[in-house]
C-alpha cells in the first residue's frame, strides 16, 4: 500500500495542464480529488510517473446556468454539489446520487469531473449523466470539443479522452418541469460501490409515462442506458406486468462480473429490482 515514485506538477491554467500532459506523455495523469487514483497508486495498480494536479486552476470549479443548461466545473466536489441550491431545485437526482457515494470525507475530496472521467464501472455519476443526456467539455492539445456522455465510455477504464485531454465541465439540459426521478442503489455498506444501481428520469401525463430514460451502474464494464426497458414503459401506468417487462429488458443487457457482492445471477436479479423500484419512485414524484 505504498505508491511508487512520481513527480508532482501544479499548473495554473487549463492550457498549461494540457501542455504538461501532452509533453509528459503516457506516464502523466491528471489528479483531481485523488479518491480513485491514489488508492490505485497505493496498490501499484496505477504507477504514473507524473501527477498533474488540477486544483491550482481557477475556473474548473463552480456551478452556473447557461440558458436552459446547467454547467458544472469538473473540479466541483460532491460536497459542493450537495450544498448547491441551484442543483437542489433543478437537478435533485444529482444530489440523491451524490449522497450515496462513499462517505463525507470522500465527498469533500472527490470531484464530479474525476468521477465521470475515471471510467470505473462502479462510479455512480456516469450512468446518471447518460440518463440526463449530459455533455462533457474536453480541452486538449488540438483545442476543445464536446462529447455526449453516451459516447464517452468504451470499456472499463477506457474512455474517449485522447492523450493530453482533460475534462473541464459537464453540461446538462434542465429536465422538464414536474419530472420524476430516482436513483436506486443497492450496496453492502457505507463506502461500498453499487451491487447494482439504476437511475430513472421520466415525465408523466394523465397517469401515463410520456418520456423515460433509465441508466444502469456497475452492471456491465461500462455504464448502460437501458433503452428497451425505457421504451417498454412509455404510455403505460407502470402496472405490474409493465414493470416486470421493463426489468427483464434491463436485465437482458446487463453483464456484471461475479465478485464478493454476489454471483452474476444475483447482481442481474437485483439490477432488475433497482430498475423497478426507481421507476415506481420516479413516477410517485412526477407531477
Amino acid at each position, binding site marked *: 500500500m505504498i*505508491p*511508487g*515514485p512520481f513527480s508532482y506538477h501544479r499548473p495554473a491554467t487549463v492550457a498549461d495542464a494540457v501542455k504538461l500532459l501532452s509533453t509528459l506523455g503516457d506516464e502523466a495523469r491528471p489528479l483531481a480529488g485523488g479518491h480513485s487514483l491514489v488508492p490505485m497508486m497505493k496498490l501499484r495498480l496505477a504507477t504514473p510517473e507524473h501527477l498533474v494536479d488540477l486544483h491550482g486552476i481557477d475556473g474548473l470549479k463552480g456551478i452556473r446556468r447557461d440558458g436552459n443548461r446547467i454547467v458544472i466545473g469538473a473540479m466541483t466536489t460532491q460536497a459542493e454539489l450537495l450544498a448547491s441550491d441551484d442543483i437542489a431545485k433543478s437537478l435533485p437526482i444529482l444530489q440523491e446520487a451524490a449522497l450515496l457515494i462513499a462517505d463525507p470525507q470522500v465527498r469533500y475530496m472527490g470531484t464530479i469531473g474525476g468521477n465521470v472521467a475515471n471510467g470505473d464501472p462502479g462510479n455512480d455519476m456516469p450512468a446518471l449523466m447518460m440518463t440526463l443526456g449530459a455533455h462533457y467539455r474536453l480541452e486538449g492539445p488540438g483545442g476543445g470539443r464536446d462529447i455526449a456522455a453516451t459516447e464517452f465510455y468504451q470499456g472499463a477504464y477506457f474512455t474517449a479522452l485522447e492523450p493530453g485531454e482533460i475534462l473541464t465541465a459537464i453540461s446538462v439540459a434542465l429536465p422538464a418541469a414536474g419530472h420524476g426521478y430516482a436513483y436506486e442503489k443497492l450496496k*453492502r*455498506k*457505507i*463506502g461500498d460501490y453499487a451491487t447494482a444501481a439504476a437511475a430513472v428520469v421520466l415525465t408523466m401525463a394523465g397517469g401515463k409515462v410520456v418520456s423515460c430514460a433509465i441508466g444502469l451502474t456497475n452492471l456491465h464494464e461500462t455504464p448502460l442506458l437501458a433503452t428497451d426497458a425505457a421504451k417498454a414503459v412509455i404510455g403505460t401506468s407502470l402496472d405490474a406486468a409493465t414493470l416486470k417487462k421493463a426489468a427483464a429488458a434491463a436485465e437482458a443487457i446487463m453483464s456484471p462480473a461475479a465478485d464478493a457482492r454476489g454471483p452474476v445471477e444475483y447482481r442481474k436479479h*437485483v439490477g432488475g429490482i433497482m430498475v423497478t423500484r426507481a421507476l415506481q419512485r420516479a413516477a410517485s414524484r412526477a407531477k
Partner: protein
Amino acid sequence: MNDLTPTREQRTAALEGMGCKRKRVEDARFTQGKGNYVDDLKLPGMLHGDFVRSPHAHARVKSINSEEALKVPGVLAVITAETLKTVNLAWMPTLAGDVQMVLADGKVLFQNQEVAFVVATDRYAADDGINKVVVEYEPLPVVIDPFKAMDKDAPVLREDLAGKTSGAHGPRKHHNHIFEWTVGDKDLTDAAFRKADVTIKEMISYHRTHPSPLETCQCVCSFDKIRGELSIWGTFQAPHVIRTVVALIAKIPEQKIHVISPDVGGGFGNKVGAYPGYICAAVASIVTGKPVKWVEDRIENLTATSFARDYHMTTEIAATKDGKVTGLRVHVLADHGAFDACADPSKWPAGFFNIVTGSYDFPTAHLSVDGIYTNKAPGGVAYRCSFRVTEAAYCIERGMDILAQKLGMDPAELRLKNFIRKEQFPYHSALGWEYDSGDYHTAMKKMMETVDYAGLRKEQAAQRAAFKRGETREIMGLGVSFFTEIVGAGPSKNCDILGIAMFDSCEIRLHPTGAGIARVGTKSTGQGHETTWAQIIATEIGIPADNIMVEEGNTDTAPYGLGTYGSRSTPVAGAAIAMASRKIKAKAQMIAAYKLEVHEDDLEWDIDGFRVKGLPEKTMSMKDICWAAYNSVPPGMEPGLEAVSYYDPPNMTYPFGAYICVMNIDVDTGVYKIRRFYALDDCGTRINPMIIEGQVHGGLTEAFAIAMGQEIRYDPEGNVVTGSFMDFFMPTAVETPHWETDFTVTPSPHHPIGAKGVGESPNVGGVPAFSNAVNDAFSFLGSTHIQMPHDYWRNWKAAKSLGVFAA
C-alpha cells in the same frame, strides 16, 4: 459532625471505586490524537522493513534474485530463508507445538506468505525494492476445501513433516492431518442416541474470519551491540510471553530483552501470536546495527496474520419427545491453514471447545476434533472470545434451534426446559468443566418479558400469513441465544503456555501523599484497564481511583503476566489486583492500630480508612496511613507501603447471557433489517457499568459483522477474495444496529471480587443470535440450517432455493 464533614455517600463517591460509571481516563489522550502507538515511534537512524509475499497459494520457490532490488536507492539488505538459516531462525516454533516458516524455505504454502524481507532507509524505498526482487515459482496443486484435505490423493502440503506419524497432540492420520482431540464418553453417548426418541444432525460451519484490529500488527526492534540488549516495541497482547519466546528462540538472555507494548489499537486475538515480521525486524536490527520498523498494511493483516474460526461442526443432539436433551455428539473439522499457529493454552489443541454443552444439562456428550492443514494462512486465534468458545456457543445454540424446530417446540421454551438449574452449581459438565455459578432461568425470563417474546411470536405468525397471501415480501425472524462463556485462563492445573502457568500479577506501590502506582501483567488493547484497575484498588484500599496510576506493557517494570485475551484480565489480573490491595490493607491496619494506640482487632474498615470499633470518631484515613508508612511505622516494621500478588485462579469463571435479535429480510434482494437487539449479560460483579456497556456494544458490533458478512474467503486457486475493507465487511456506525443492554448479577463464588469478565461475551452470544434470527425467518419455508455469513446475496440464494420466486 459539622456540615463540612462529608457523608458516607460522599466519601464513597469520592473514591470512584467499583460500581461507578467512571469516565475512561485513557480517552483524554485517545480522543485528542495523543495516543502513543508503535508507528509513532521514531528512533534515530531507524530503518524500515517490508515483505516480498507469495502470489501463489502453493508453489515451489525455484530461486530468489535480489540483485536489482539491492540497486534501488535506499535498499540496504534483502533477507531470505538462506540468511535466516545462518542464525537458525528460518523456522520458528508456534504456540500450538508446530513449527512455521519465517520466510519461504523451498516452498510457499499460502497466498501472501512471507518470502523475503527488504530493509531500506524508508518505507517507500523498501516497497520499491520489493517490486524488484525476482522470485521464480513453480505452482503446485492447492488444497482449499477442508473436506478434501484428507483425501487419499490430496497434495502433500507439509513436506517437512514427512514420515512424522505423530505431532504435538498425538497421532496423525494423514499427511495433511495435525491432530485428533477427543473428550467425553463415547459409549454412553452412542447409547443415548440409540435410545433417543428424537435426534438431529447438521453440519454447522463457522466460516473463516479475521479479528482485524484498526491498528495492524507492527514492531520496532533495536539491538544494542555493545550491551547485547534487544528492545522490542510492539503491538503485543502478551508482552512477557513474547520476551520469553524471544529468549528461547534467539538465545538472548531474558534480562537483556526489553519488550514494550505502548498504546495498542485493538487486538481481539490478532496480536497474541509471534509473526515473521517480528523475527525479521529483530534479525535485520542485529545485522544492520540500526533500529528496524515493520508495519503491516491492511491487506497483509487480513491475509497473513492470524485468522479466526474456520470450524466445520457436525452436530448431533439426542432428546426425548417432550424435549429433554439426552446426549450431544460433535465432530469438528478444524481448518488450521498451512501451519498450526493456533493461540491456545498448550495442552488444548481445540481450545475450550468442550464447553460445547453450553448452558444445558446434558447427561452425556462426546466430542472429537480433527485439525488439518490447507493452503491458507495460519492462525486460529480467539477473535474476541475465549479459546474456541464462540465456535462452541454457535454450535450448540444453532443445534438447540434445529432441535426445537424438529420437535415443533418454541426455541426459548426448549432452552428453559434444559437449562442447568441454579441449585446445580457448581455444575460438572459432561465434557469436564466445573461451572462456578449461574442463574439461567432468571436471565432468560427477564429477556423474554422485556422484549415481550410472546408478542413478537404473534407478530411473526401474522407476518408469515401475510407473506403466504402475497401481501408482503418480507419475512421476520427471532434469534434467541443463551450462551455460557468460559473465561479467565487459567488455573495452573489445566492451563499453560509453553510451560508457563497462566497466572497474572499486580504490584502496587503507595506514595506518602496518598497516591500510588499499580503495575499489572496484562495489557489493555482498548478495554480501559487504566480506568477499571484503579477502581478495584479504590474500593479495596480507600484511595481515590484518580490517585492511582496504572501501568502495563513494559516487561522491565511490570510483574510477569500472561497478557490480555480470552477475557482473562478481570478474572485473573483483576483478582491479583484485589489480592495485592488486601496485602497493603493488612499492613495499613497494623500502622493504623499503632497510631491509634489500639489493638489491630479493634479496628474495622470504613470506606477510606479504619475506625475503632464502637468509637466512630476515632479514625485514621488511608491517606494518613500512607504518610505514616513513610515516617512512623511500628517498631520492627519495614517502612513503605507496597505489595505484589501473583494470582493462580482456582477455577475459570463462567459469564452467561440471554440475547435476542429481531430481524426482517426482504426476500427479493436479501437485504435484512435488524429491528431490535437486546443483550442481557451476567458477568458477576460489575466494576464499571459504563465500560461494560461499551464492551458489549463493541462485541455485538463484531458479532453482527461476522454473522452478516465478514469472512476471509478463498477462491479455488487459493486467492483471498476478501483482502481489503472494500470486501471484508467492517460495518460503520450507519450499518450497526441499536443495542439494548441489560444485566443480572450472579457473582463468581471463587473470585476475590466476584467478577467474571465480559469483553468477549457479546461476540460469543451475538453471533448465534443473528444467525438464529436469519434461520428462524426462513424456517417456515422448510429450511433447517443456512450457513453463515448471511450477507445479502446468500439470503437471496436461500430464498430462491426455498422456492419463493416460483411463478
